[in-house]
């Protein structure tokens, strides 16, 4: 359980003091920096972090800031994520899709996400995060939980946990399970 799969929103929550999971996300981030726990996440988390940082900074400050602050903010957000010593999962390599009349290769992660769509009706990026988590669990049996603040994923945690073969927990549940507070 000290190793877990971290969804993007847990990291963003650690930087958002008015978020309902901020206290727990901050505790998780602190323990990650101190090597008390270890996180794995998809390379998609880097893209999602950059996207949230870019969109929110643009929406809030673009009228005031003409300099590079938004770009610096995105880079700092990515570096902050890396400072948590997170292991980024990149399911590399293209493989042919196993559907008769589709003759193409696609990244392995996409293939796993398509396979997952047969089991769960989820949106594209949810499929890809869960596919990465499922892959991570296959590679690392010590991975104890998928931690997310996403209400939609948490509401389906019974069925999704079976698919990725590890429990889906909120940051609060994870912190309580490990007694990190």
């Amino acid at each position, binding site marked *: 359980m000290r190793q877990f799969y971290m969804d993007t929103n847990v990291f963003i929550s650690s930087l958002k003091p008015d978020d309902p999971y901020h206290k727990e996300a901050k505790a998780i981030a602190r323990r990650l920096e101190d090597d008390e726990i270890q996180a794995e996440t998809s390379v998609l988390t880097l893209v999602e972090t950059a996207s949230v940082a870019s969109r*929110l900074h643009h929406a809030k400050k673009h009228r005031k800031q003409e300099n590079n602050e938004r770009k610096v903010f995105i880079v700092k957000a990515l570096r902050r994520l890396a400072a948590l010593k997170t292991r980024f999962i990149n399911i590399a390599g293209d493989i042919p899709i196993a559907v008769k009349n589709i003759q193409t290769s696609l990244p392995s992660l996409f293939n796993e996400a398509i396979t997952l769509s047969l089991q769960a009706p989820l*949106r594209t990026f949810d499929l890809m995060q869960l596919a990465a988590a499922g892959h991570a669990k296959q590679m690392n049996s010590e991975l104890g939980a998928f931690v997310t603040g996403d209400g939609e994923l948490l509401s389906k945690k019974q069925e999704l946990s079976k698919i990725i073969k590890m429990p889906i927990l909120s940051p609060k549940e994870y912190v309580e399970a490990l007694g990190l507070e």
Partner: protein
Amino acid sequence: MEIINVKVEKEVKEKLERLVKRQAYKNKSEAVRKMLEEHFKEHPELFASDELYVIVKEADKMTNEEFEGLAAEVFKGPKTAAELVGEGRGRF
């Protein structure tokens, strides 16, 4: 034009000389120049990170405390972190 001195392996020098002998290029200097120009033209991605390098240098100047203060201001609002990420996933 500018002059640069470049050290190459003997084998590379011999190949360049063969190309000059075959009159593919006027001389070794032109051969290297044309090859570099073609390579840069074919691989514009080599220079895509120039801007990023400048931004990373600027990011070095921002302290973690300054970043956390800015993040708190930027992310502040009624939407939760999960909702902000979820917007990028096509929700809300």
